[in-house]
Structures are given as structure tokens and as C-alpha cells.
């Protein structure tokens, strides 16, 4: 029983860590195919990581511990989140700790560490990227928290395992206005948090537009590998969380190995599908101008707020 729970946690972390580069590779490949290019193949991110990890660690002159620690912090917080969040099973030893607010805080910790690292380099790009990244983060965090509140009201708890478990038992609740609005708000927030289009373009190095890339411009070698891995893991975890909240079917609510195996397969399939859809959509999207980003985020904030009010008043007691 407990062993299976532990196995589930381990499986989640391993799957996220190993699968995140593959997810990124899949998305790039889909995009390449839709744009009429051959594409480097699904495994390319892994090959990049391997190449970077073999290189010598170099840090810019004058940088301090903030710069060195940020990649580690980013990867480790994301790994902890991957362990906490009920991606494949709701009955794990740590599921009692899987509070939505804690998860948001852990993700924010990684973002802040990266922003500090950007400032630490003292270059123009680092500072600019950090400032932009913090602006976006400041707008995204309230949205995520509000959406979390909206989702937690019907379940009566901010524990993710409880919320997801409720969703599995009572699928009607997912289609309620509150559930739909909160999911939409979370989706926008996830796009912003992971630096995808239309908020940020992950594949640009144009100084006018980059946000995430500007912060990590000074990294090289193994540090860069960790930063890349961290970013990919965040995308994987957040997409996984989104599927768990919006389409929780197949998540193991009991501690049986068969259910766990099925849940892991389904999780892979769902996240891959969502990633593919996102990549396909990104082909058609243009990046928003930076001063239009707050509009998008204010909109998602509004959606989250409407979700809260709706869950309180529409069907509420």
C-alpha cells in the first residue's frame, strides 16, 4: 500500500524529469512539421542536454551564489512539485501535503531565483529580463491563487488530491461555470508562467521581445542544461496539473499497481496530446506586444474572479 504510493511518487518524478525534454521535443517537432520543416526529431532536447552537461562550467566574472544556485533551485523545486501534485495517483504518502497554495509558492520560488540570477549578472539583458519576468509573475500569481480558490470551494479544501479526487467522483462539477472559468484562467496563467506564446516566445533571441531567454542569456554548460531542463519540467508539470484538474479521468484513486500503470500511461498520453495541441495553436498565434500582456493577464484574472463568484453564488448554498 505504502510502497505503491511511494512508487507512484517516484514514477511521477521520473516520468516528468525524463519526459519533459521529450515533450519539448515533440512540441518543436509538431511545430516544425506544421511550418513545413523536417525538424530535428523528438530526441533533440535530450541530445542538447547531454552536450551541455559534458561542457565545462563557466560563470561570468562578478556573479555570486545567486547565479550558481538558481538552476539547482529551479530544477529541485519543480521536482518537488512533480512529486506533490497528483498527476498519476491521489493516494501517495505526500498527497496530504499537496496543497495548491504550496505548489504555487514553490513555482514562484523557482521564478524568483531565476530573476535574481538575471539581476546578478549585472548585464542589461539580465536586468531587463528579470524586470519583465517579475511583471508577468506578479500578474500571474493572483490569477493562479484565485483559480485555486475557485476550484477549492466545491471541494472544501485546497488540497490538490482532494480536488482531483472530487473531480473523478463527480464529473458534472467540472462542467459547471465555475470549473470551466477556473480552468480557462489557469490555462492562460500556465501559458504565462511557462513562457509560451502569446506571452513570451521561447525560441526568440530578439532583445525587444524576450523575457525568459533574457534572464538566462549568461548561462553556459551544465548550468544552462539545468535551466533548460527546469523550464521543460515546469511546462510538463503544469500541463499535467491542468489535465488533472480539467480531465482527471484515469487517475489512480486506489493503491493498486494496475491502476497506477494505467494512470501513468494515460498521463503521458494526455500531456502529449495537450502539448501537441498547444504547439499546433502556437503556429497560428503571434506574440502579444509587451504592453498588451497585462490585458491578457487581467482578463485571466477576471475569469478566475468570475469563477470564484460563480462557485460561491450560482449553485452555492
Amino acid at each position: 500500500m505504502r510502497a505503491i504510493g511511494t512508487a507512484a511518487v517516484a514514477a511521477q518524478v521520473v516520468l516528468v524529469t525524463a519526459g519533459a525534454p521529450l515533450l519539448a521535443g515533440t512540441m518543436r517537432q509538431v511545430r516544425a512539421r506544421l511550418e513545413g520543416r523536417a525538424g530535428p526529431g523528438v530526441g533533440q532536447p535530450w541530445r542538447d542536454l547531454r552536450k551541455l552537461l559534458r561542457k565545462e562550467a563557466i560563470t561570468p566574472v562578478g556573479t555570486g551564489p545567486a547565479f550558481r544556485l538558481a538552476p539547482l533551485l529551479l530544477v529541485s523545486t519543480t521536482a518537488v512539485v512533480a512529486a506533490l501534485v497528483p498527476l498519476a495517483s491521489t493516494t501517495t504518502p505526500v498527497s496530504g501535503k499537496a496543497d495548491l497554495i504550496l505548489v504555487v509558492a514553490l513555482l514562484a520560488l523557482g521564478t524568483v531565483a531565476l530573476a535574481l540570477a538575471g539581476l546578478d549578472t549585472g548585464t542589461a539583458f539580465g536586468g531587463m529580463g528579470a524586470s519583465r519576468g517579475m511583471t508577468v509573475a506578479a500578474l500571474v500569481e493572483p490569477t493562479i491563487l484565485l483559480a485555486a480558490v475557485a476550484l477549492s470551494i466545491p471541494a472544501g479544501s485546497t488540497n490538490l488530491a482532494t480536488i482531483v479526487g472530487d473531480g473523478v467522483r463527480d464529473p458534472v462539477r467540472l462542467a459547471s461555470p465555475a470549473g470551466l472559468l477556473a480552468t480557462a484562467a489557469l490555462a492562460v496563467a500556465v501559458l504565462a508562467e511557462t513562457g509560451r506564446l502569446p506571452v513570451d516566445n521561447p525560441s526568440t533571441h530578439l532583445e525587444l521581445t524576450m523575457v525568459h531567454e533574457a534572464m538566462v542569456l549568461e548561462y553556459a554548460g551544465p548550468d544552462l542544461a539545468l535551466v533548460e531542463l527546469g523550464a521543460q519540467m515546469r511546462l510538463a508539470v503544469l500541463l499535467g496539473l491542468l489535465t488533472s484538474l480539467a480531465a482527471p479521468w484515469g487517475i489512480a484513486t486506489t493503491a493498486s499497481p494496475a491502476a497506477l500503470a494505467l494512470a501513468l500511461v494515460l498521463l503521458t498520453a494526455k500531456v502529449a496530446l495537450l502539448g501537441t495541441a498547444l504547439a499546433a495553436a502556437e503556429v497560428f498565434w503571434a506574440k502579444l506586444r509587451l504592453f498588451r500582456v497585462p490585458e491578457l493577464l487581467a482578463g485571466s484574472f477576471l475569469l478566475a474572479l468570475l469563477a470564484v463568484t460563480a462557485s460561491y453564488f450560482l449553485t452555492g448554498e
Partner: protein
Amino acid sequence: MNDSVYTQLLDLACGAFLLAAVVVLWLRQLSSIIRVFALQGAVLAALAALLGVREGRWDLLAVAVGIGLLRAGALPHIVRRALAAGTPPPARHYEEDNSEAREARPLVNVAASLIGAALLTLLAYAVARPLVELDPTPATRALPVGLAVVLIGFFTLVTRRRALAQVVGFLLLDNGITATAFLAASGVPLIVELGVSFDVLLAVLVLQILTTRMRAAFGGTGIDDLRELRD
């Protein structure tokens, strides 16, 4: 139709209704705004039909059809025609971004007005407390949605600087009132409903003609140009 399905559908319709109002506030392109407004009209008709089926009143279904025709068909059509009259087709593809078809500079910027809409929604919930407490049913619980749309419509009317955006604001206000009537008491008596719909139709026609005249007199439909009369 059992209770939970009815409640679910009702809540969905109300959610979509409110969402459409918010999206109107979010968008700038007037043609998209009108499309969303038409969608809202359709949702309103669906809401009326749902109540009609629930109460087994077939006259409500007829009213729902009428509402759908008026608010998802005729009114958006009139506004769209007024818009098309003012925006000649672009000569080159890149020229389509002319100021007539867009709400370029609202009095309150879009991000702030979205936050404003959030506050207005909360206000509507606060104001509607006594209404819900009088007779708590699934329909009256959704009354704040109607009031919120009224407030958002008023907000649009006050802050938007294009004549047609103001018209849409007025229509949002009116949609909100109709929704309130349906949620509170399954609609006002038929003769009143007919008269009100007729009045709204005429008012929009009048506003359409006035837009044409405004274009002739001012060369555009910006409300900010209206500054001949002041003390």
C-alpha cells in the same frame, strides 16, 4: 428534466452570458464585439427556452424564439450594417486596421476595465443579496449574473469612445435587464415584452441612422468629436 441537469444547464447558460459581456469589454475589433454580442443573444434565448421547458410553458418557448431572432439576428445585423457603412473595404491587406472599425482608445484601458468588470460583478452580487434571499431557487440564485451584465453594459456605454461600441453597451444593458426578468419571474407579461422589444429595435434603428448622420457631420463616429455643446 431532472433538477441537477436543469441547474447545470441554467448555470452554464448564465456563465456563458456573463462571459460574453466580459469578452465584449476585452475585445477592440468592433466586428468581433458584434459577433460576441450576437452569441450572447443566442445564449439569452437559450436561457428563456430552458425556463420555458422547465415550467412547461410553451408561450415562453415562443418568446425565446422571438428573443433569439431579435437579439442574435436583427440587432447584430443592424449594428453590423452601420459598421459596414462606415468602413469601406481596405484597399490593401495591411490597411484593414483603420480606426473606424476599432475601439482604439477607450476612456479606461482594457486591462483596467477588465478589473473594473470584476469589481462590478462583485458589486452585482452584493446588491442582489436581497433578491436571492426573497426566493432562493436555482434561477434566482443566478440573478446577480443579470445585474452584472447590466452594470458591465453601463460601463461599456460610459467608457467606450466609438458610437457603435456605445450602442453595443446599451444593448448589453438591455440583454442584462431581459435576463434579470427571466431569472426573477420567467419574464414580464407578453404585451410588455413585445413593447419593450419593439422599443429596443426602434431605438437601435434610430441610433444607426444617427451614426450615419454623425459620419456625415463629423467625418467619423468618435464620441470624443462630440464637443460642440458644452457650458
